[in-house]
């Protein structure tokens, strides 16, 4: 399960960096990526399961955007989305799986 | 203001066992604060214990002694009800003193 989650995140991340390497990103690309990231964070928050790394990546995205480095900003925003989605998937999966861990 | 010094001195048959705890940050000088700046060394340098007008123990401490430092030692003599005076001074000149009764 843990391994699977990590693989999932890693796959998304490598896809993201590949995409951004191909074409230079614009402010609009960043806005779009940021909006998606924000939506994922909101959902994770509602599930009361955010990861600390998500917030850190969001900060990095904003900083890069402020510096006009949109390639980097988009990559960070996509990372945020991937991390937030990871925590969402975890929360949903655990809703079903937790009883398996109970001492009986 | 409560004293920075806690002492427990218990008279036995032959010797008095003393334990003390002193409230002090004992900053080593190697730790950084939240802003990333080094907290300057701030530590107790000398602790003295006196019984019957005589110094029975002296501790000389560098910055490697733990926060709220603890000490345990024993001396001959001392009986229940005697005074035991404890004093400390730190590297910034702050100090405190307390006279406790031996139990």
């Amino acid at each position, binding site marked *: *399960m*843990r*391994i*699977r*989650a990590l693989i999932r995140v890693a796959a998304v991340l490598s896809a993201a960096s590949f995409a951004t390497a191909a074409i230079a990103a614009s402010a609009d690309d960043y806005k779009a990526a940021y909006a998606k990231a924000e939506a994922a964070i909101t959902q994770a928050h509602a599930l*009361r*399961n*955010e*990861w*600390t*790394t*998500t*917030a850190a990546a969001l900060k990095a995205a904003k900083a890069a955007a402020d510096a006009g480095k949109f390639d980097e900003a988009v990559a960070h925003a996509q990372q945020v989305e991937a*991390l937030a989605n*990871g*925590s969402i998937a*975890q*929360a949903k*999966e*655990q*809703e*079903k*799986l*937790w*009883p*398996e*861990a*109970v*001492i*009986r | 203001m*409560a004293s920075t010094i*806690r002492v*427990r001195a218990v008279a036995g048959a032959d010797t008095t066992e003393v*334990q*003390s*705890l002193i*409230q002090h940050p004992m900053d080593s000088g190697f730790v950084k604060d939240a802003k990333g700046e080094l907290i300057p060394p701030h530590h107790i340098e000398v602790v003295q214990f006196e019984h019957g007008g005589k110094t029975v123990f002296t501790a000389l401490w560098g910055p490697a002694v733990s*926060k*709220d430092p*603890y000490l*345990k030692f024993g001396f001959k003599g001392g009986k229940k009800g005697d005074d035991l005076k404890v004093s400390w001074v730190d590297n910034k000149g702050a100090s405190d003193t307390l006279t406790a009764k031996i139990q």
Partner: protein
Amino acid sequence: MLRKVLLVAALVAATAQPLLAAGDVDPQADFKAFRKYFTERFPKVPLNDFVNGPYSMDEGLRKQWQAKEEFPPYDFALDKGKELFAKPFKNGKTYADCFPDKGIGIRQLYPMFDEKSGEVITLDVAINKCREANGEAALDYLKDDMASLTAYMAFTSRGKPFDIKIPNDPRALAAYKKGEEYFYTRRGQFNVSCASCHVQNPGNHIRTEVLAPALGIMNALPIYRSEWGGMGSTSRRLTTCNSQVRGVPLPAEAEEYRDVEYFLSYMANGLPISGPGARP
């Protein structure tokens, strides 16, 4: 392990049935299984010693702890708590007016299910309710004053066995269940639950710490940690657990935290309060 989880996931998906119906909350059965698990896994640890956390698991650590207990570093926090506890509010009343037995020797009764609000009230929450009822501002759950106050109240209760009641009220049972769920749910980027550490790995090292067993883990709270260089409240401990596994902590005394404290304290019924504890 991985295969097992996958298998379970497949089963769950296939049957698409909730594993637990609403009716089958059985705290007593859980209690028995929980106790059996720990006593069988650690046959050499006397039952009442589980409350000493990592010190019940490791002789080297235990010796250092005992040396520190000769004159515990939390002595100052304890005195501070005593002072705070006795200090009258502006209206002349004190904490003693809010609690059974004037607040002395009662820590083992918390968390308590409050029939009026239908919620679990921890000792820390009860302290703030007392303050607010007397026109005082609430204390920060994560800060020193709350830690000192609860340390003193725990100290006056040392040796008294946990006596947590789960009344036959659907709201109390639901809170218990939520606490249990929180305890066993994996979270944070490290994907671990409270149970991953404190059920599956007590006595083992995580990085440099020896993990405490879940049985009796609440009995020592609040705790003085050498790592903190001071006394920390139950809220501080729980939120730290979250951030250590790279999860964003919930607000202090959030429902989940109160419920998990309820669950764990119930599991420790009969075991003595040992708080305030000292931990690495």
